[in-house]
């Protein structure tokens, strides 16, 4: 199976976010970057499918040059080769633009299965996978908790809402968006990190692939959300805060 895993590099979850002076984006230089966590589950699922069925795992990303480190991480975990579609504008690009870039790269090669994470930690569109399926003319299923491949067909367990599930089948090639928690992701070994340095990583520019970089949506203003409730903040040492909280819950909120 030729398996393509789409990865995004995002600011780490514990990054401090500072809104940039023009209120259109955040101060990028404040951020530490890491693999988008939901994508790590897609990578793991792809590696497991390769171990079971053979073939190749290709890790790809559309991003600025820094995204190469996320592809290297995937190579260290066991992906066979990487593709970076490089353009600084991808850092703030919408899902349609990113999907166009991924489709241009994947479309050049034979592909049986394309996997993406559920959504990104930064924009949180939750759309890139489904758009990519449409652009590549692939059948798709989303929020997947189990993948079985047999005889050119896929059978997947799709998560519905409120604890319900559904099995869906389709023929390959196909695209799946993987639900976080489907598997336990592996860590890269020292040997893996060493091997990754020798694995091929092809870099295309967006121009080389003819990617339409026109944005379909734009941030007009970025701002801190307004609180919906007036939160009473309780300060002091652990002991003081605990005592004050219990007072409030007993005599103000009257819930204990």
């Amino acid at each position, binding site marked *: 199976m030729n398996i393509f895993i789409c990865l995004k590099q995002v600011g780490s979850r514990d990054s401090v976010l500072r809104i940039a002076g023009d209120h259109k984006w955040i101060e990028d230089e404040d951020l530490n970057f890491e693999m988008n966590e939901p994508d790590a589950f897609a990578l793991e699922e792809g590696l497991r499918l390769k171990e079971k069925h053979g073939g190749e795992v290709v890790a790809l990303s559309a991003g600025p040059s820094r995204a190469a480190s996320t592809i290297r991480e995937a190579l260290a975990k066991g992906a066979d080769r990487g593709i970076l579609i490089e353009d600084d504008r991808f850092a703030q690009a919408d899902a349609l633009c990113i999907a166009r870039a991924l489709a241009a790269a994947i479309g050049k090669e034979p592909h049986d299965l394309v996997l993406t994470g559920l959504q990104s930690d930064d924009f949180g569109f939750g759309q890139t996978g489904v*758009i990519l399926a449409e652009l590549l003319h692939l059948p798709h*299923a989303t929020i997947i908790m189990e993948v079985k491949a047999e005889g050119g067909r896929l059978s997947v367990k799709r*998560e519905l809402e409120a604890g319900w599930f559904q099995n*869906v089948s389709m023929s390959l090639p196909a695209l799946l968006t993987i639900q976080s928690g489907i598997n336990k992701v592996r860590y890269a070994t020292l040997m893996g990190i060493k091997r990754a340095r020798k694995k091929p990583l092809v870099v295309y520019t967006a121009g080389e692939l003819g990617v339409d970089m026109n944005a379909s949506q734009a941030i*007009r203003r970025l701002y*801190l959300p307004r609180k919906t409730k007036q939160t009473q903040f309780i300060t002091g040492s652990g*002991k003081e805060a*605990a005592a004050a909280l219990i007072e409030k819950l007993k005599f103000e909120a009257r*819930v*204990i």
Partner: protein
Amino acid sequence: MSVLVVSEQTGGVWHKMSFETIAAGAETAATLDCPLQVSVIGSGVDGLAAEAAAKRVSEVVVIDDPVLADYTPDGFAAAVRQIVEQLNPTLVLFPHTYQVRDFAPKLTAGLGKAFLSDVVGITVDDGELVFVRRLFQGKLNAGVTTAGDAPYFASVQSGVFRADAAADGEAPAPIRKLDVVIDPAQIRTRPEAPFQEAKGAVDLTAADIVVSVGRGIKDPENIPLAAELAQAVGGELAASRPICDNGWLPLDRQIGSSGQTVSPNLYLALGISGAIQHVVGMKGAKTIVAINKDEGAPIFEIADYGIVADLFEVVPALIAALKE
């Protein structure tokens, strides 16, 4: 100019967010001073169409086709595409459900359009639609505009608009059946009947007090600390999704869009950031307490009482004080 709300039902039962989305559509249609249309899609949906027509809407359009009895992304994207082509609305609003996440991006990509997913507000500024989206897991808001001409497409986050704000009309709205052609051969996925995993023994919805843990608990070895607090305060222990994904607590203790929805008198959130997937499952709690190291955590937006601190300093003190 018009606003179209794409409602959602499964097997003749409404998705509750359908009426929240009708409320959102009504508000925007009033601002734009234009008609509000609602589509009902499925097989055997006459009864639901009549219920939608009882609301204060301009028109209900129906696609009733056996091909649409079971949801498939190919079938539903094709159906909504034909509705949009026939009605040519200015704005198409969806509820932000798992189903919409599955087919709406396909529909909009096919039309070369942007899809503003999971919006928490819609405003009109100088004749331009501005959508409010939450970025960076709810830590920041963004006012977003889309390029190009109408139709514009957006989905509305759960709980932002109130279903009961979708007012009844004075007289039933007209219902129109649309003729669409959906070729069964273009449906490439085969869905089976939905099922539930073995139902858990824990009914968190009945609990008066819920003590819930998130990523901040750091290690499975720390779960007993939260359990001790739950016991001391007389509540049930629950968790956000990552904790159950890791197997630190069983799935039947998960709160949120993929778990249980609770509205206890007291909800104690320990090390929970407050991602929307979690918040939809607990924001109905009467009193919410959040203990989190990160003062920017979105959970503090909905908390009545907040303690910005290391939970490992506060929780043992809480347990000790409660046991006194």
